[in-house]
């Protein structure tokens, strides 16, 4: 797979992409604005038939990072979509209408980071115990929050 050509092609196809970066051998990270997420997910999952792997959610300095991992098994590349959500309004469209298997991980991220997935078919508690207090999210960085 010619990765230089691939990067040029995907930038042509989606001009809104902010940055494309090869982070490691056979690992590509595509930084996109939130609005582009459904379109590029559809393109990768349905048209290019990339395999859905998982979503990583992370509390970083500038906001909540959601990293959607897909795998191109014909070449062994792992393609990741990086979406940055602001700390104040952590909301994003649910991808369940495109990728069926994504339902569980979105519920898990709701639990651990408090990110709201719009139009999720079953936005209920998934991992944490019933006694866990509402509004307490174990993976949010608490120290940073107080500093702000």
């Amino acid at each position, binding site marked *: 797979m010619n990765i230089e050509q691939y990067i040029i092609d995907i930038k042509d196809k989606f001009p809104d992409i902010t940055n494309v970066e090869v982070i490691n051998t056979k690992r590509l990270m595509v930084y996109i604005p939130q609005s582009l997420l459904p379109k590029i997910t559809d393109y990768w999952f349905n048209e290019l038939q990339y395999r859905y792997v998982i979503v990583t959610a992370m509390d970083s300095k500038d906001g909540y990072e959601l990293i959607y991992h897909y795998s191109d098994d014909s070449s062994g590349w792992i393609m990741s979509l990086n979406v940055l959500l602001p700390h104040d309004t952590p909301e994003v469209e649910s991808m369940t209408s495109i990728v069926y298997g994504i339902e569980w991980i979105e519920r898990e991220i709701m639990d651990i980071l408090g990110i709201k997935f719009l139009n999720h078919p079953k936005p209920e508690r998934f991992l*944490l*115990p*019933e*006694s*866990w207090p509402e509004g307490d999210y*174990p993976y949010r960085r608490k120290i940073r929050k107080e500093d702000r």
Partner: protein
Amino acid sequence: MGIKDLSFKKSLWVFHLSAGSCNNCDIEILDLLTPRYDVERFGMKLVGSIRHADVLLVTGIITKKTKARVLEVYEQAPKPIIVIAIGACPCTGGIFASGYNFAGPLDKVIPVDAYIPGCPPKPEAMLAGVMKLLAPPPPEQANANK
């Protein structure tokens, strides 16, 4: 011989409860049933319901979600019952003790009769633990108890 000693004399029926384990201890317990160790020759067997059991084996850390269920299972158990904590996790919390979903070692939840540490304990260690628990106490200790 009291009723308790009589009831644990032979043919122990065992109920296995996994509170939040990594599967290793559970597999080693199942391993005890298979041909190499074959605990059924001592009359021990795994039963499907706590209501039939003499011994409750607990593996894994007690998570906040399983804590209430562990208590409930213990309450349903016919008394007297022997509770054995298998593996490092129910004994102390082991490597997971710093987790946010950890609700304390097993002896903070229900009374425990024996601890079999190890990660996971070998099947021989489990057998040895149960045997030590059931062996008659040494004479001096038996006298002290009188």
